[in-house]
C-alpha cells in the first residue's frame, strides 16, 4: 500500500515538469511555443501518444475528429450563445506550462465570496479555485480505495481504466453514445481526457457512494471528461460528481460524455451537481442503457455555467427496466439552463418517471427539453412527466419543449407542466407570520426544490440550500 502512495505522489509530481522530457514525442516544446490552441489531427495524435493509448483508441479518436468537422452546429437551442464558441481558441492539449498555475488573485471575486460564505476549508478552496492540481484528501481516498478493491469494484480515472482494463473499455466504449450522435459527442470522443471508469462485478453492492471528488489526477474537473460506468448483473452503485461550490475554470468549453450500462437486475444512481463558473459553456451528453429489470436514476442539479445543454437519457432495453430522472435547474443572471430528460421505451413492461423543477431569476432562462419515445413493441408501459417552473422577477424566462412519440396503445403516458411566479397568497401567508419577504421567498423556493434536495446525500443538501440562499440574496454573479 505504501508503494502505491509513493507511486501516486510520483505521478503527480511530474505534473510540473516538462512533458516532452517524460514522454519524448517529437518537438513538443516547439509545439507549445507555436501556440497550443485549436484542434486538428496532430493534436489528437499527440493526446493519444502522450497517454500511450492502444491503436484502437487512437483510431477512434481520429475518426471522431473527422465526424466533428463534418457536423454542423445545432440549429435549435440557444444558437446565439452557441455561436460564440470559438473552437480555435481552446486548448485541447496540455496548456503551456506557464499557464498551468493560477494565482489566488485570478479567481473571480464572486467565487471567493461564495467559498467564504459556504465555509469551505482552505485546501479545498485552492483546489476548487483551480489554484492547485490536487485535493489534499489522500488519506481518505486511499482507505476508500482499499474497501473497493476488496469488493472487486474498479473505480479509476478513465485514462487508467483504459490502461488497466482495455478489454472492458473496448467492449463498452461508444456503445451507448457513438461519436456520430452529435457534434459535441464527436469532439469529446476525439479529445477526451479524464472522467471516471467504474466497473461493479455481478451481485456486488457498492454501499458507499463513489464520488468523483476523490479521484486524484490532473484532469479532475476537466473540460472533456469521459465517464463509463458498468454495473454488472445484480450489482448496485451510486456515483456522485460535481459539488455545490462554484468551480472556476479558464477553459470556457466543457463537453463531457457519460455512458452508463445497467445490466440485468442492476441499479445505478448518478447524481450531478453542476456549478461551473459563469463563463462556461457546458454541453453534455449523458445516456444510460437499462437491461432486464434494471433501474437507472439520474439526479441532475444545474446551477452554474453561462449555458448548459444537457438531457440525461435512459434507454429501457430489457423487460421490466425502470428509469427515473430528477432534474433541477436554477437560472440566474445571464444564465441559460437548457436541461431536460429523455426516456426511450423499447422493451415491454417498463416504466419511467421524469420530474423537472426549474427556477428562473433576474434575466435567467430555464428551458426544459424532453423526449418520451415508446416503440412499437413496448406494451404495458407507464410514463409520468411533471415539469414545474418558477419565475422570479420581470426579466425571467421559462420554456418547456416536451415531445412524446408513442407507437403502442397499451401504455399510460401522462405529462403535466405548470409555470407560475411565487404566489402572492403564499407570500402573504408567510409574511403575515413574521418572515420578511426575502425569507418567505426563500422558503417557497426551498419547498419547490424539495423533491430534489431530499434525494441528495446530507452534506450536499445542506450546501445546496446555502447556495440557493446566496442566489436568492443576489450576492452571487
Amino acid at each position: 500500500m505504501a508503494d502505491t502512495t509513493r507511486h501516486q505522489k510520483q505521478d503527480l509530481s511530474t505534473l510540473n515538469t516538462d512533458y516532452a522530457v517524460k514522454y519524448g514525442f517529437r518537438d513538443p516544446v516547439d509545439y507549445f511555443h507555436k501556440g497550443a490552441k485549436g484542434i486538428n489531427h496532430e493534436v489528437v495524435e499527440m493526446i493519444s501518444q502522450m497517454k500511450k493509448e492502444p491503436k484502437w483508441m487512437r483510431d477512434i479518436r481520429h475518426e471522431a475528429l473527422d465526424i466533428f468537422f463534418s457536423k454542423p452546429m445545432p440549429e435549435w437551442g440557444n444558437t446565439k450563445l452557441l455561436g460564440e464558441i470559438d473552437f480555435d481558441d481552446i486548448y485541447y492539449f496540455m496548456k503551456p506550462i506557464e499557464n498551468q498555475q493560477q494565482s489566488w488573485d485570478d479567481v473571480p471575486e464572486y467565487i471567493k465570496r461564495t467559498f467564504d460564505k459556504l465555509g469551505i476549508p482552505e485546501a479545498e478552496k485552492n483546489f476548487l479555485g483551480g489554484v492547485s492540481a490536487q485535493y489534499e484528501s489522500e488519506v481518505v481516498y486511499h482507505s476508500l480505495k482499499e474497501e473497493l478493491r476488496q469488493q472487486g469494484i474498479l473505480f479509476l480515472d478513465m485514462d487508467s481504466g483504459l490502461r488497466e482494463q482495455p478489454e472492458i473499455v473496448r467492449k463498452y466504449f461508444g456503445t451507448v453514445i457513438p461519436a456520430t450522435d452529435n457534434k459535441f459527442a464527436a469532439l469529446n470522443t476525439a479529445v477526451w481526457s479524464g472522467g471516471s471508469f467504474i466497473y461493479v462485478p455481478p451481485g456486488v453492492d457498492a454501499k458507499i457512494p463513489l464520488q468523483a471528488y476523490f479521484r486524484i489526477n490532473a484532469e479532475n474537473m476537466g473540460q472533456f471528461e469521459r465517464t463509463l460506468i458498468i454495473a454488472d448483473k445484480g450489482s448496485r452503485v451510486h456515483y456522485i460528481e460535481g459539488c455545490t461550490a462554484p468551480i472556476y475554470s479558464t477553459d470556457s468549453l466543457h463537453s463531457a460524455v457519460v455512458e452508463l450500462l445497467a445490466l440485468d437486475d442492476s441499479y445505478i444512481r448518478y447524481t450531478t451537481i453542476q456549478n461551473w463558473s459563469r463563463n462556461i459553456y457546458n454541453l453534455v451528453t449523458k445516456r444510460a442503457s437499462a437491461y432486464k429489470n434494471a433501474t437507472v436514476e439520474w439526479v441532475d442539479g444545474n446551477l452554474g455555467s453561462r449555458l448548459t445543454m444537457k438531457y440525461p437519457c435512459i434507454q429501457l432495453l430489457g423487460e421490466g427496466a425502470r428509469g427515473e430522472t430528477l432534474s433541477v435547474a436554477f437560472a440566474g443572471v445571464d444564465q441559460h439552463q437548457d436541461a431536460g430528460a429523455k426516456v426511450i421505451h423499447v422493451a415491454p413492461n417498463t416504466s419511467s418517471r421524469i420530474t423537472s423543477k426549474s427556477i428562473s431569476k433576474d434575466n435567467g432562462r430555464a428551458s426544459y427539453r424532453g423526449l418520451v419515445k415508446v416503440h412499437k413493441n413496448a406494451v404495458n408501459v407507464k410514463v409520468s412527466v411533471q415539469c414545474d417552473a418558477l419565475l422570479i422577477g420581470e426579466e425571467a424566462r421559462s420554456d418547456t419543449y416536451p415531445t412524446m412519440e408513442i407507437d403502442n396503445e397499451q401504455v399510460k403516458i401522462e405529462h403535466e407542466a405548470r409555470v407560475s411566479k411565487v404566489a402572492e397568497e403564499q407570500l402573504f401567508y408567510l409574511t403575515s407570520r413574521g418572515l420578511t419577504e426575502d425569507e418567505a421567498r426563500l422558503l417557497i423556493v426551498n419547498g419547490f426544490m424539495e423533491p430534489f434536495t431530499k434525494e441528495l446525500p446530507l452534506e450536499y443538501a445542506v450546501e445546496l440550500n446555502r447556495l440557493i440562499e446566496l442566489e436568492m440574496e443576489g450576492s452571487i454573479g
Partner: protein
Amino acid sequence: MDNDMNTDNANSEYKIPDMAPELMRGPQWLQEKRTLARDAFNSSPLPRRGLHLWRYTDPNRFMVDRASVVDSAYTEDYDAVEKVELRHLEQGRLSGLVTDLGGREINRYGVEKLAEQGILVTSLSEAVGKYKVLVEPYLYRLVNSATGKFEALNGALWNDGIFIYVPRGKSVAKPLHLLREAGRENSAQFPRLLIVVDQGSELTVIDEYGGGSHKMEKGLSYANSAVEIFGMAGSRIRYVNLQRQTSAMNSYLTHRAMLERDANMLTIILAFGGLLNKQNFGAILSGQNAESNMFGLTFGSGHQHFDCHTLQHHAAGQTLSNIDHKVVLRDKARSAYTGLIKIEKNARTCEAYQENRNLLLNKGTRAETIPELEILNEDVRCSHGATIGPIDPMEVFYLSSRGIPYDDAVRMVVGGFVEKTLKQVPDDLRERLRQFVNTRLEKI
C-alpha cells in the same frame, strides 16, 4: 421523388411558372402580391425534416405540380350536402350559405338580408375590386410568404375565395355556413378566406371542407387553404373548421386570427377527413383582455395521418387562452399534435391552459404530442397536460356485457370521451357539432 408509378402528383422540384394564369387574377395591387408570393415560393427551400413542425410529415407530399392537376368536377355526395344546408337556411337555422366549388365557382344564398345591414358576404374576387378599401389592409397580413413555403403557394395560386365583413355593432345571430367542395382525383384547390369583424360585433362561421378523390389508384386530390380572421376590439367570433374530406386527399391549412382588446374568439377544430391532413391554427392576442378558446377533435381511422399545430400567442397583458384537443385513433391512423403557448415579455397577468388527450383504440396507431411553452413574463398562470393511452377495457366490457355489440360499445365509450368537449361548446352550436361528430363516429 421520382416514382412514375406514383399516383400522387407531388413534384418536389415544382416551381410556379412566370405566366401562371392565377397570377393575373385581380387588380394590379393583388397581382403584385401574388407575384411576390410566387417568387417567395420558388426561392424558398422545402422545410427541413427534423424541425418539429415537419418532423412527422413529409413536406414533399404537399408539393403538388399545378400543371399536372385539373380543376375537376365535384363529387356525387356534394349535391346531397348542399340540399341539406339549403334546407337549414330556409328553416332559419343559418344566416347564410356560401358554396365554393374548388375555388372556381362561389355561390351565395340568403345573404341579401345581411347586406341590408352592411354585412358583406362575397367572393374575394369581387371584394378585391369593389371593396378594396376593406380588403387591402387585411389580405395577406396574417398568412403570407413569411409564414412558410406552402402559405406562399396559396398566396400565389388561390383562384377565388370568400370575404366576410361585419361592420361595427352588428350581430350575425345564426351561423354563416361555408361549404367548400374539393374536386375529384387529380384535382388541386387553393381556398382562401378573409373575415373582418369590426368593433363590438358578433359572427359565427362554420367552415366546412368536403369532397376529394375516392380512389387513391386513380389519383389523389389536394387542397392548400388559408384562413385569416381579424377580430377588432370587443368583437366575438366563433369559428368552426370541419374537415371531412375523402380518404384520398392531401390537405394543408393555415389559419391565423388576430384579436384586439377585449375580443373573444372560440375556435372549434373538427379534423375528421383526408388522407394526410396538416393544419396550423393560431390566435394572436394583441390587445388587453383578449381571449381565445380552442377545442379540437380529431378522429382517425384507416391510414389517416393528422398533423395539427396550434399557437396561442399572448402579445398583450391580461389575456387568456385555453386549448382542449382530443384525439381518437384506430386502425393504422396517426396523429401528431404540436401546441405552442407563447407569452411575450410585456404580457403581464396572463393565463394559458392546454390539454391534449389521445385515445388509441388498437395496436398500429401512433400518436405524437409536443405541448410547448415559451414564457417571458413571470406574472403568469400557465399549465398544460397531455395523456396517451388505450380505451379503458373495463368500460367496454361493462357495455358489451349488457348485450351491446363490441363496435357499438367502443363507439359509446369514445362518445363519452368526446362528450366532455361537447359539453363546453355553446348551446346553440352543440347540436350541430354533435351531428358532425356522430356522422364521423359511425365510421369509427
